């Protein structure tokens, strides 16, 4: 097996990556996960280590299989998690991810969800909170193969910038070769609502606590319904406390 060359900026999937950091962990091993027909599995990935992390999950869902993936991407100087999911007939794929960055962190989630057969469902919810000069990226491609009728796909991508120097990149992308499909995507980048903050502060919450509460609510959807929702929320909350 030949080792793939280090990607360059021209690779769309690496356009916003920290290539110097990536070089240190290249090549990235494929982590293959097979969910057999009719089975359900879940996985929570928490990247809170220091240094550079790059992972590539390749998930194959057979007919009627379901996979629930949650990602908290918050620790590394460079944290990249790529996810390829291939959905068989009637399969169900859920991704809920939060990226919480500060300093000069570069965090990215790059997904390619392929609906290969009819009636598969995919749900992606990505929330990024970025402070300092951090960069958070979501590149999400949904591909619907010819004949994958009844595909039902949703991407909800939102980013919150806590400073004017933070960056959010978001690119939901659809590639559809079938009729009769439902592919919804929404994307928004914003700042904390100043009116809401003042409202909370006027009731006695110090600014940091008010921000933390609003950000906790902002990312909650990413972990809602997860098997270990409480653990993920608690880890995220602790990290948010450092961001505000």
């Amino acid at each position: 097996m030949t080792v793939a060359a280090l990607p360059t900026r021209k690779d769309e999937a690496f356009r916003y990556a920290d290539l110097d950091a990536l070089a240190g962990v290249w090549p990235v091993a494929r982590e293959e996960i097979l969910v057999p027909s009719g089975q359900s599995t879940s996985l929570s990935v928490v990247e809170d280590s220091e240094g550079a992390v790059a992972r590539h999950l390749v998930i194959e869902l057979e007919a009627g299989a379901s996979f629930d993936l949650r990602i908290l991407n918050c620790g590394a100087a460079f944290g990249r998690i790529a996810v390829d999911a291939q959905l068989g007939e009637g399969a169900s794929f859920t991704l809920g991810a939060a990226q919480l960055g500060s300093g000069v962190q570069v965090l990215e989630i790059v997904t390619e969800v392929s609906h290969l057969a009819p009636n598969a469902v995919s749900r992606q919810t990505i929330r990024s909170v970025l402070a300092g000069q951090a960069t958070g990226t979501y590149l999400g491609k949904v591909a619907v193969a010819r004949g994958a009728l009844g595909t039902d796909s949703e991407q909800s991508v939102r980013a919150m910038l806590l400073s004017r120097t933070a960056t959010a990149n978001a690119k939901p992308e659809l590639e559809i070769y079938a009729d009769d499909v439902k592919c919804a995507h929404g994307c928004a980048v914003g700042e904390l609502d100043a009116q809401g903050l003042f409202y909370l502060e006027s009731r006695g919450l110090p600014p940091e606590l008010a921000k933390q509460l609003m950000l906790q609510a902002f990312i909650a959807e990413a972990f809602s319904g997860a098997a270990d929702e409480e653990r993920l929320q608690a880890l995220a909350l602790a990290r948010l406390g450092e961001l505000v």
Partner: protein
Amino acid sequence: MLQINNLSATVADKPILKGLSLSINAGEIHAIMGPNGAGKSTLAYTLGGRPGYEVTGGSVTFTPPTRHPREGGDPSPAVGNTQGQELGSRFRGNDESVLGIDLLTLAPHERAAAGLFLGFQYPVEIPGVSFVQFLREAANAQRTARGEPPLSGAEFLKLAREKAGLLKMDMDMLKRPVNVGFSGGEKKRAEMVQMGILDPSFAVLDETDSGLDIDALRIVGEGINAIMRKPDKAVLLITHYQRLLDYVKPDFVHVLAGGRIVKSGGAELALQLEEEGYEAVAA
């Protein structure tokens, strides 16, 4: 309790308050009425410390009474001399608090901890944050700032249930996200539930009566009386209409026009305004 002296304030560099003076003592309820654009909401926000409301002159001195921790459902024993708390000494019944606090130097959350409550004309919706969670955090943040022990979950829920009952509000509504999906009237009632829970010494209520139907108006009026009509508390009611004042009898009524108080009187002034209009009375 609150001494506003020659207060001037601008919003986006536009002068709105132009030398407003007002003195409110403990045990008093004052109503401020006035035409649109007179500066009523600006006064409320300036007292609350909202960013963007720039004070360009004058002073506001707040002298909260010594707090009696047994009141307001506080289960803790009398406050001792807790040293080293961030804001503690400013709220004790010591010489400092008798002299009063320069309200304008405090951040919004510090004003709340000192005993100020601002009832919003348009309460803000905050998706994803429940009333119960937010109010418990807020109540405990205030208590910590005053050097009081925090309320436990059970103590807080008991207090919240009692105050919600006072405003005839279903406790389940307080488990919902802050103001999200609430009708105009429900939002205003929720404001009063918050006031009941936070138990302030001084409340500025900005058009709390707007958006209320007749029954809700009575419930809110009675709520204000039950929570704030006390010898050691005071209220500044900002309103357009006489209606609320049928339930919450003001001791003083002021007319605010062009950024200052142009006329003051007793409760009868509100009736006269209703009868004759601002222009005739304030001229």
